[in-house]
């Protein structure tokens, strides 16, 4: 009886939420359904006619701009790489003063944690818009936006990893007269390093995706070209770039997943 009542209360809440959402977004079912064929038409417009008999020349024609696109993709990947590296490095350093168990005064821990929170809660695209004002169009704004967002995310994850360590090595270093830096370098880092590497790779995957879209606002990379080609109605080009992005993202995911599972494997084997 109670489960029935609970289920009907859930159904009423769901229905109310649906009605509210449809009202706010000014959408009815007819518009929703009418949108679907428009999308399928558009998606098919993104690919030029490819005939099997002339597939090679058709593809070559479709990818006429491959040299430029690959160069932009290269920039995008480098943005992701540098943003991940610098964000992870700074986030890692800040994580030691954001951990409660490493002797940092509580007010400092609190402040650093709030800073990390702001850095990761504001989406990287919004950071990019702020940086565009300061640094102008181009990859610099994008890479800084990725770095700031990464710093916030890694700082939090690393601090959590730091707080879950075995504290005996720290006590050991301290009892031998080691400084705070020795405690971190010898007592903490070796314990959490596999975690750090795994998080960094995972973040790189995320940042490759971010780097492809950060160009939409003018912050460099292949996203800028995709945005422009859609704005200028060069649908074939947009389709070609979308395919490049999709393949790249999938490849990076595969490689990173494989590497992470190997790291997890060696870390598990050690224990």
């Amino acid at each position, binding site marked *: 009886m109670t489960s029935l009542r609970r289920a009907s209360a859930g159904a009423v809440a769901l229905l109310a939420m649906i009605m509210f959402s449809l009202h*706010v977004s000014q*959408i009815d079912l007819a518009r*929703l359904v009418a949108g679907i064929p428009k999308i399928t038409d558009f998606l098919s417009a993104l690919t030029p006619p490819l005939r099997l008999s002339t597939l090679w020349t058709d593809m070559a024609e479709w990818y006429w701009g491959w040299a430029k696109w690959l160069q932009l993709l290269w920039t995008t990947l480098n943005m992701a790489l540098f*943003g991940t590296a610098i964000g992870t490095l700074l986030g890692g350093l800040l994580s030691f003063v954001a951990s409660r168990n490493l002797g940092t005064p509580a007010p400092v821990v609190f402040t650093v944690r709030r800073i990390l929170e702001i850095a990761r809660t504001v989406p990287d*695209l919004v950071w990019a818009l702020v940086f565009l004002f300061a640094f*102008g169009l181009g990859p610099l704004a994008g890479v800084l936006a990725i770095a700031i967002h990464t710093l916030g995310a890694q700082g939090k994850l690393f601090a959590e990893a730091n707080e879950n360590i075995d504290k005996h090595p720290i006590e050991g270093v301290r009892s031998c007269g080691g400084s705070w830096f020795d405690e971190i370098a010898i007592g903490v880092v070796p314990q959490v390093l596999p975690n750090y590497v795994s998080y960094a790779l995972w973040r790189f995957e995320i940042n490759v995706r971010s780097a492809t879209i950060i160009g939409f606002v003018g912050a460099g990379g292949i996203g800028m070209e995709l945005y422009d080609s859609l704005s200028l109605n060069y649908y074939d080009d*947009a389709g070609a770039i979308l395919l490049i992005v999709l393949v790249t993202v999938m490849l990076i995911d595969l490689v990173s997943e494989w590497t992470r599972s190997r790291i997890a494997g060696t870390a598990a084997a050690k224990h």
Partner: protein
Amino acid sequence: MADTTASDWVEEDRRSARLLAAITRPAGTRLRNAAAWFFGFLILGYAAWISDILSGKLLAGLPKLAGALAMMLVPAGFEHLPEFLWALAETVAMAFLGTLLGATLALPLALLCARTTLPIRVLQFGFRRISDTLRGLDHLIWALVFVRAIGLGPLAGIFAIALVDIGTLSKLYAEAIDNAKKGAVEGVRASGGTWLDSFSLGILPQVLPNMLSVTLYMWESNTRSATILGIVGAGGIGYQLADRLRVYEFGQASLIIILIIGTVYLIDMLSSTLRARLIGMQGSKH
């Protein structure tokens, strides 16, 4: 300590040299590590150069950045609050409808991606690749494409969220289905149930709490994503935010960001309360 002789000191010295040799790495490893660090820095330096970090632009822009951040410390534009709140409601609605649509369509695809419900390997492989492709591209890319296809407004955002969700949720649902205990399925089959019966009676009751829980989690995550979809014109608060930032109204942008963070926080709390209840219900059943 008085009877310490010179030979004792020498002996001590030898011992510590042996100890040092035992704890330091051999020369070959040290060389390899040094080479790895060197190439690592080389690659990073190259990436920095490509990303325009090393040009003078970084230093030249810092004062402007400091000015912008200082302006963001003082939220402004409270007279636009009704407009901002309406746009936020649109964002929440977009995330909700997108998740609902995505979850509804993900269920049939999940049945085609799971080993338990579709034992034909080749077909299952094909459907899994479809699922991979859908979640391969970011919400914002789909939103940009859909804005061109169906025009500005929340509908493009709803479709973008739904499409990525079909990919993500079909994968998660399929995993839940494959992890369900097979005994119940066999029981339904043995008593003469159809394929549909074996799913709805044998699998669904086992996996429903888990599926609802991951769907709520996606709702939470989609609310975050939906806040920026407006930047490309797909409805919601992102449009206002990008608009204010493009005309350098940093105070107003700051107010919008605070509103976004508050909303995301509320949805997170709601969703995690609901998920905790679901898990509680599941726990009490066992």
